[in-house]
Each structure stands twice: as C-alpha cells, then as structure tokens.
C-alpha cells in the first residue's frame, strides 16, 4: 500500500512538473491560431518525452549514469564540450524565461513594480532550493503546479466540439511555414532537455536502483502522459476562448484568462497559482540541470543530497545560474520572446543528448537484461529520426516566420 502511495505521489509531482513556460506560450498561441489542428504535435512531443525520460531513468537506475555522464563517456570529450557549451547557453535562456515568467505571474497577483518582483521571485526560489531537501522541492512545486488541472476542467466546461478535437489528434499538415514553426514549437516545448537532465540526475539523487524500474515506468508513462493531457487542455481552452476573437495570447496573463472564462475568479486564481508553481518549479529544475551538466562534465561532486558544503562547486553553479538569469531578466527582455528562443534552440541541440542516452540504453555491456528490447529500440530510433528532422527545421522556420510573428 505504501508503495502505491509513493507511486501516486511521484506521478502527481511529474504531472505538476510537466508544464512550463514553453507550453504556456506555445500551446496557448497554437490553440488561438490553429484551434485543434496542432493537437497531434502535442501527442508526438509527449510520446517523445516519455520515451526519452523512460530511457534516461532506466539508464540512471541500472547503470548509475545520469544524462551528461553518458554524453561524456559515450561521445568523448570534444562532442561533450560542444554539447556542454550549447546546453549551458540554452539552460540560461530557459532559466531567464522561467524567472521572467514567475515575475510576470507575480505581477498579476500583486501590485508591486516588476523589477522588485523579479528580485523577490529569484530570492524566493533560491531560498527554497537552498534550504528544502530534494524530495521536498520536487513535491512543493509538483503538487502546487497541479492547480493547473483547472485548465483540464475548463477545457471540458467550455464544451469544445469533441469531434474536431479528435480530428486534431490525427497528424495532418498545412502547407504554411508558420504552421510548421508551431509544429516544431509544440513538439519542442514538450521535449525540453532540462526536464530530462533533471529527471535522470534526480533518479540518482533519490538513489534509484533496478528495483525502481517500475517507479520509473509509472513516472514516465503516467506522469508525463497525464502532463500531456494538461498540455492538450491548454490548447483546447485557448482555441475556445481566443480563436474566435482573434486574440493572440502573447502574454502569460492572457493564457490564465481562459480559466476565468470557465470558472470566474476562482478559476483565474487557480490558474495563476498553478502557473506560478509550475513555472517556478521549472526554473528550479533548469538551474539544477545547468549545475548537473557542468558537474557531470567535469567530474565534480554533485547533488542536492550532498548538502551545499559537501558539493560546493555544484552549489555555486546553480547559484550563479540564478544570478545570471536575474541579470538577463532585469534588462527588460520579454520572457515570452526568451521562451521562444529557448524552445527552438533546445530542439536544435536535442540530438546531441538524446543519442548517447539511446546508445547506452541499448548497450548490454552497461544495461544487461534491462537494455532496450526490439520495441524500445524501434521507438527509440524512430524518435531519433523525428528529432533530427525537427532539429534541422527549427532555425530555418524561425527565420522564415520571423519568430512566429508571421
């Protein structure tokens, strides 16, 4: 019974931790622009993150290696160095976007100037992360992020044409660069690498072993899968509320208005609360991912379970990340714009971290009986192909569409 309870807690945390500013920006715009016609891209992205996360969790549990460990040992120093630099930059942009998002949401809740809110937001996050143990952090943000489920209720409440919704889940194509750009964005928002770095390093922080493979599977399939439902709900709500009047939800607050339309002020508050913790949690994951990546590349001691003084370079790394993100956001750059850059560049760098994980996951020397079977191999390689296509298309599409603005 206790085991079931633990499983449930992990899954809930994964649902709450799934959505971040990438989904809030891309999915809301996707729904407003194309109604349900991009739903299938969410499905492609969500299955992708399930496959990727399941493999990294399994590799971490069985072989004791987190993602960047596999990058360094499997791809060698040179490729790892390139991947490191790219990951650091992307992580910083993403973290800045999430921190900016936290400030924007706080701005909707409190009447204080934005610059102060950025400072308060960063300080709040840093204090929580510094003083709360790892599983506590996972849960605070994961559980409170579940307030976002109000969007699922809102999606149902707003009575969409379910026939059209079902049609949207079937892959289709529209010959337009803007549509293609949003396909890449929606897939990319689901497949963000920092979530996976965090997930696999977290598996090691939680001391997973072979006995935890079921937990890994449940977290990946149910946690990320149900997170995907939330992601779909965001599109449906946005389609119902914004597609008619041609409003472009280019601002985070607009996204929350979808919940208000359905449930009034309570809906709005729940949506904002959920967004605050989902985006705040994403900021934490992002800062940690940066520090994990750096520490694992160089071989430093790492992990929240060590305590700050036991792993000082790791601790400094995430503190510095927060500080840099703070500086970036204080320059006044638009977090929504940062989010688009973060998602698009993440997609471009994705093959570099996906491939070594796939290689280790299928390697019997390291994985023994837990190596990929034929089905996992087939799905794994298929997704590698999809990722390569999406990665190749990302930058050209961003340039052609002028960052999605047409």
């Amino acid at each position, binding site marked *: 019974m206790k085991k079931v309870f633990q499983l449930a807690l992990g899954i809930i945390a994964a649902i709450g931790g799934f959505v971040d500013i990438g989904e809030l920006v891309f999915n809301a715009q996707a729904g407003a622009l194309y109604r349900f016609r991009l739903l299938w891209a969410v499905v492609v992205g969500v299955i992708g993150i399930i496959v990727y996360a399941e493999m990294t969790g399994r590799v971490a549990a069985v072989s004791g290696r987190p993602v960047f460990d596999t990058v360094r040992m499997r791809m*060698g120093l040179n490729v790892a160095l390139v991947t490191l630099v790219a990951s650091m930059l992307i992580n910083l942009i993403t973290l800045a976007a999430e921190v900016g998002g936290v400030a924007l949401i706080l701005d909707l809740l409190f009447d204080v100037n934005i610059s102060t809110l950025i400072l308060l937001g960063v300080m709040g996050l840093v204090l929580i992360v510094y003083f709360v143990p790892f599983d506590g952090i996972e849960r605070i943000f994961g559980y409170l992020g579940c307030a976002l489920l109000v969007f699922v209720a809102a999606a149902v409440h707003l009575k969409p044409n379910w026939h059209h919704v079902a049609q949207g889940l079937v892959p289709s194509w529209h010959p337009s660069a803007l549509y293609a750009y949003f396909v890449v964005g929606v897939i990319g928002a689901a497949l963000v690498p920092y979530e996976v770095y965090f997930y696999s390093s977290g598996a090691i922080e939680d001391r997973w072993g072979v006995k935890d493979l079921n937990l890994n599977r449940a977290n990946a399939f149910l946690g990320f899968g149900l997170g995907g439902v939330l992601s779909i709900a965001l599109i449906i709500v946005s389609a119902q509320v914004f597609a008619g009047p041609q409003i472009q939800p280019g601002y985070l607050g607009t996204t929350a208005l979808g919940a208000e339309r359905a449930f009034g002020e309570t809906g709005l508050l729940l949506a904002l609360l959920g967004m605050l913790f989902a985006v705040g949690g994403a900021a934490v994951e992002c800062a940690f991912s940066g520090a994990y990546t750096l520490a694992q590349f160089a071989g*430093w001691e790492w992990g929240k379970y060590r305590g700050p*003084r036991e792993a000082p370079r790791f601790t400094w790394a995430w503190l510095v990340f927060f500080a840099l993100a703070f500086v970036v956001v204080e320059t006044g750059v638009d977090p929504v714009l940062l989010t688009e850059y973060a998602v698009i560049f993440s997609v471009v760098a994705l093959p570099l971290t996906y491939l070594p994980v796939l290689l280790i996951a299928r390697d019997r020397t390291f994985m023994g009986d837990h190596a990929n079977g034929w089905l996992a191999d087939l799905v794994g390689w298929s997704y590698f192909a999809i990722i390569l296509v999406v990665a190749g298309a990302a930058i050209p599409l961003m340039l052609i569409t002028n960052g999605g603005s047409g």
Partner: protein
Amino acid sequence: MTDQPEVNLVYRILDDQLVDVDGRRCGRVDDLAFDGDLGEPPRLWTILSGSGAWHRRLPRPLRTLGARVFGSGTLGLDIAQIPWSQVEGIDAVITLRSKARELGLGRGDEPRSTAAENLPRS
C-alpha cells in the same frame, strides 16, 4: 594471451567518473598515460585527471587555444596523476583506493575549500 580479459580503453575507461574511497566524485579519466615505447606492449601507468588534460584531446588545430583556456597541464596545478594501482574497481564509475585529497583530486569540492567556506549552512 587470449585467455586474459581484453578491454577497450576508450570505450570502457576514458572519460569515466572517478570516485574515491569515501564515495565522493572527484574527477574524470581525462587521459591515460603508458609506460613504454615501441616494441613491447606498454604498461598502463597512470590516469590523468583535471582540466589541464583537456587541451591535448581537442582537435589538433585547437590545442594551443585549449591550453590557454583550460590550463596547460601542469602536474599538481590543473592536472592530477593517479597511479593505475590505485584503481579498486571498474563499474558504473571507477573507484579508487584512497581519499581524493591524498591523490590531489577534487580540491575544489573539499568542505574546507574557499568555495565551501563561503556558502551558508543549510
């Protein structure tokens, strides 16, 4: 010779994580040094670990620049030499028989290092 275990060093040893006798992560296998020359098979002599070892692994045109960025490989300063006999086991990580400090590894992560002293207790 064939009944002795054969190992591919790049695949299995190079770039792996080093962990000391207390279970602390303390660097990676950044390079390997062999004792010997042409003729008889050289003996695997030491593990080299530290950013000072990195520049020699870059593509040749970038090595000079790499040495400026990461350190030129001065023993004791930016590179540590760990005798191969210090290796206790090879699994997910490479475990060593001594404490990191005694091997000149992981100096930035020691609890009494400046980096650690400047952090508040949690």
